[in-house]
């Protein structure tokens, strides 16, 4: 499966991003890593160009909260992205927040999977379960 990943906004925390690339490779994905300092448009453009099924966004410095609000509106402008699995992880707020408050907010922004201060591999396990579940649902519906 094809995955587009990167760190959103002016955030330059690159370490998790390097590990993300390694982990995704190890799990057999075809990875398109846009690196740090990547804007929303660039993510969606890349998803369209590569035909990726998954978009994995990182945010570490707290910026995501600002960018998140624009996700739905922007994504609506693109065709062919309706089935894109949208996932975000890292530090999803400025200061310290609680997952209970943060997750619903980001689901509302249009993310399927939200991992606030969750370890990379735990997050990627969740992703795989999510994809497997969706396949079952789809085949049931067809």
């Amino acid at each position, binding site marked *: 499966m094809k995955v587009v990943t990167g760190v959103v906004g002016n955030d330059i925390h690159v370490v998790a991003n390097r590990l993300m690339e390694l982990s995704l490779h190890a799990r057999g994905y075809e990875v398109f890593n846009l690196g740090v300092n990547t804007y929303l448009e660039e993510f969606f453009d890349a998803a369209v160009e590569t035909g990726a099924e998954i978009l994995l966004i990182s945010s570490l410095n707290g910026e995501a909260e600002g960018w998140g609000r624009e996700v739905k509106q922007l994504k609506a402008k693109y065709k062919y992205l309706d089935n894109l699995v949208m996932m975000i992880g890292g*530090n999803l707020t400025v200061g310290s927040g609680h997952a209970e408050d943060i997750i619903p907010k980001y689901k509302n922004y249009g993310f399927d999977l939200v991992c606030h201060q969750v370890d990379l591999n735990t997050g990627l396990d969740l992703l795989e379960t999510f994809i497997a579940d969706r396949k079952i649902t789809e085949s049931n519906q067809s």
Partner: protein
Amino acid sequence: MSLLQEEREIILGNEYVDTFDFAEVEDFVKNASKELFISHHFKKKNKMLVQPRGGFPTYKKQFALYEFFVDANVDVLPLTIDSNTRLNDYGTAKKMLRLSEDNDVDMLNGYPLVNHGYRTTRKMMTHFNKPVSLRHGTPDARLLIETAIASGIFEIEGGPITYLLPYSKNFPLDKAFLYWKYVERVCANYSKLNEPINRESFGPLTATLVPPCITIVIQLLEMMLSLEEGVKSFSVSFSQSGSMNQDIVMGAVIRKLSKHYAAQIDCADAAINLVYHQWMGAFPTNKDYAEQLISISTVIASMVGADKIITKTREEATGIPTKEANAKTVANTQYSLGILNGLPNVVDQEEEEILTEEVHSIMEAVFNDPADTLWRKVFNSIKNGIIDVPFSPHIINHNEMITIRDAKKNIRIIERGSVPISDRCYAYERAQCDLTKDTTSIVNDIIHDIGIMQ
């Protein structure tokens, strides 16, 4: 009028600056209390100075933070700047500052110094009458530094390399050198009026598996670029590496070589200080463990014999620390420094010798670059990978060097890329590691080594 002064007038003619009175500022610096100058404290103090990190958007909150720090017996106050100001986006900073003031909520991750202006900020600095250190991360810090000095902030952190390679992906490196040249000159000129303004380089870089030789080379080069312009008080710095011995060795070598290279450009008269950063890499989320890590950093700083320590808090992994947590670290660090007695003098000759040779080799390669000025030589050396910073997000950085930790957790170079360390040193570095492992295990080791303190 000098070219520099012409440039200054353009810079300070910025619409966000409320008429900059050059003469008045000069007068202020000339008569400013010695207490405000960290260079003065470095001269007279016989203990390690303790400095936390911290910046809030409003004057009121910054003032309250300082009160907490003073209660905790702080030696040096920090002023951390918000990220809009760092990107010279004073418009957004202004808007966010107003929102923060009106709604009593923090809309900025630091103090927007340019918007507050020097007339206001100076009141706070002279009120507390303690040395203040400016922490930013700005490639074009010209306006910021003018405002800082006019406010009574007489220590400026950063540099063209250390504030660029870890902090930016696309900002042009050559421009950064030129903007910092301006900063050095302004600092140098003001230094003639009273005690010197202190410049400090940011040694932690990406805080992730950076080998000692790269850190030291960059410290030395930023020091030289600064002294060249007339700066008379400079701090080299580095952060806890994860191995006590490697830190001690790094401290010894950087202290020796900074004197050496300062003398080489006839700047032996400048005061060179050593600053140690408590662990700058990924922190444990368990706050009790974070405190252990912080105390251990303090012990190592004492073993290194640093002149100043910059602290972290138990909340580092979670988010921006509260003023309470921040002040608590200061009080704890002061207490620890007081009870750390009878420190042994540790010397590891073999490690010192290898590291010294590595630094000399890289420095020589930089100097051998055919360009005409030092900053151009350094620029070229970064561009062609003679200097290579692991985990830098910047596009100009080569990312060819690979480092891992040996059994004692020393950071070792296992792929040198284009960094010209000698075969002997390279062989020594690799010999410390177990390279018989397969690639997957080595990659797993690297992943583990990044989070070594977790």
